[in-house]
């Protein structure tokens, strides 16, 4: 089992979700996050007062998947979240020791 964490541009979320649905992913967790990478921030100007916005809004997706699905999922996210411009985000893949479905008590691959 792996945990896949992807940071993407917020407006790409729907496309990514649809692509994941298509390959049979049954659950994802989404959060609104802020951060910076190579894209850096931008400046805002209000009546002459200039503010640098360092942290840009992004969306973080977390998906727990069985090992055999990892490549497909990473590929789906990569293809759909890509604009080709700076700030498209990152995908992290990390090992996952276990999972439990709280309602039934199922464990491991069966729980996800």
């Amino acid at each position, binding site marked *: 089992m792996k945990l896949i964490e992807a940071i993407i541009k917020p407006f790409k979320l729907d496309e990514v979700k649809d692509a994941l649905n298509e390959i049979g992913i049954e659950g994802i967790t989404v959060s609104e996050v802020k951060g910076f990478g190579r894209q850096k921030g931008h400046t*805002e*100007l*209000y*009546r*002459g*007062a200039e*503010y640098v916005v360092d942290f840009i809004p992004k969306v973080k997706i977390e998906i727990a998947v069985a090992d055999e699905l990892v490549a497909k999922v990473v590929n789906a996210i990569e293809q759909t979240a890509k604009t080709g411009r700076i700030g498209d985000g990152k995908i992290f893949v990390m090992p996952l020791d276990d999972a439990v479905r709280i309602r039934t008590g199922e464990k491991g691959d069966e729980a996800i």
Partner: protein
Amino acid sequence: MMSEDAAETKRSLSSRVMVPFAKLLLAACLLAAPIAAQAEDKAAPAAPATAAAHAAPAAAPAAVAAPAAAVAAPATPAAPKNVDPVLNTGDTAWMLVSSALVLFMTPGLALFYGGMVRSKNVLSTMMHSLVAMGIVGVQWVVIGYSLSFGPDLGHGLLGNLSKVLLHGLVTFGKDGLPVYALFQNVPTEPGAIPEFVFSMYQCMFAMITVALVSGALAERVKFSAYCIFVLAWTTLVYDPLAHWVWMSDGWLAKMGALDFAGGTVVHLSSGFSALVILYFLGKRRGFPNERMAPHSLPLTLIGVGILWFGWFGFNAGSAIVGPNCSDASGGLAGLAFTTTMVAPAMAGLTWMIAEWIHAGKPSALGFGSGVVAGLVIITPAAGFVQPGAAIIMGIIGGLVCYGGVMMKAKLSYDDSLDAFGVHGIGGTTGAILTGVFATVGATGLTSGNVKQLVTQLVAVGSAAAYAVVLTFVIGFVIHKTIGFRVEKEDEIMGLDQTQHSESAYN
């Protein structure tokens, strides 16, 4: 182009005035020459009340002498006769609507200011405007109207206390039926509205003026101190200034100072007073390094719209005190309505373009600020200038106020929401420019009347000096007693929670 326009107006004005004038002179000579001559001996033309008593009835239609514009009154043997006021229901209806329009500006201001602060201070900022409606609403009925528009105490400085609690605005005749006092702007014309309506109209001005000051104090002023300030400032600064400029025996009115709807009384006074209070209050914690961006510009832009809407009552309604104007809902109101439309439109565009060139992008806040700057600058001039001049004033207003706001960023004093940058600077510029562009009911520099410009400068200087000195005294007393500022922790937590135990967004 302007000078041509101005000259043309002057010509048409003089021909309009001269023809009936000649007829009148003839009639007066034939019918009432002996009496009129006697009257001329007895009374100066500036005091039509005494002269008119002896004049022939034929002189009545020539309403030339009005208290607010003694300049316009030529010496004539047939001085106009004073007439009893007659209720004009059309004017009354318009003034009732105007009063409500001006009232609506204050919640508009609450939105305008509320959107520009951080989300932790939005309720406190809106409350500054709303509580002014409460405090001034009561103060005006109890004492404010009497101090502003009561009979003069002497030297045109302040009204007396004879109209405390609006005393005398309704009396009871022998039959026990109520008799409502009437407000008549021109003594020689019958047109009048109930004095209740006039006093309520003026009340709304007092409310919004002190609320304008709150823009400079936002995000750090202690609510209790603010409430005391509102009461003291309205009583000691606003009420006398309103008397000076708008009461027929106020000293600036007698001098011929032009202020159609409140450039000096409302905007200049609130703007300069804001600057004085800043001296005691100091900057917001973290200014200018911490991010203090507006939390909701949509609120601010709705506020701009409501202010503009209400401003039609503010300016067009002010025809009720226009010089020589006995129709509150006539042509003069139409002119003021027009200039109140076009000057802010031009000023919004000017600010937007200036910002586009200077800072790179045309911002929504910039356009909205420009509209308000245009409204401020046209306020003293609304019924004195023609639409062409209003467009020029809009351009000047947009540029000057944009400069004023930029200057704040450079000098780094913390006028949070630019009460001085927009109202102080815009009000002053507008009051001075009224003395330049006036062609309707008065003449300014472009019509060759240098004296009017000098009068405007005197009015601006004395109103600013009075507001600064009195506000300094009020500020000093509050500063030394309860203090203006909230505690450091309270300021960081936000005024909504610490001053009002509420939060805006849950």
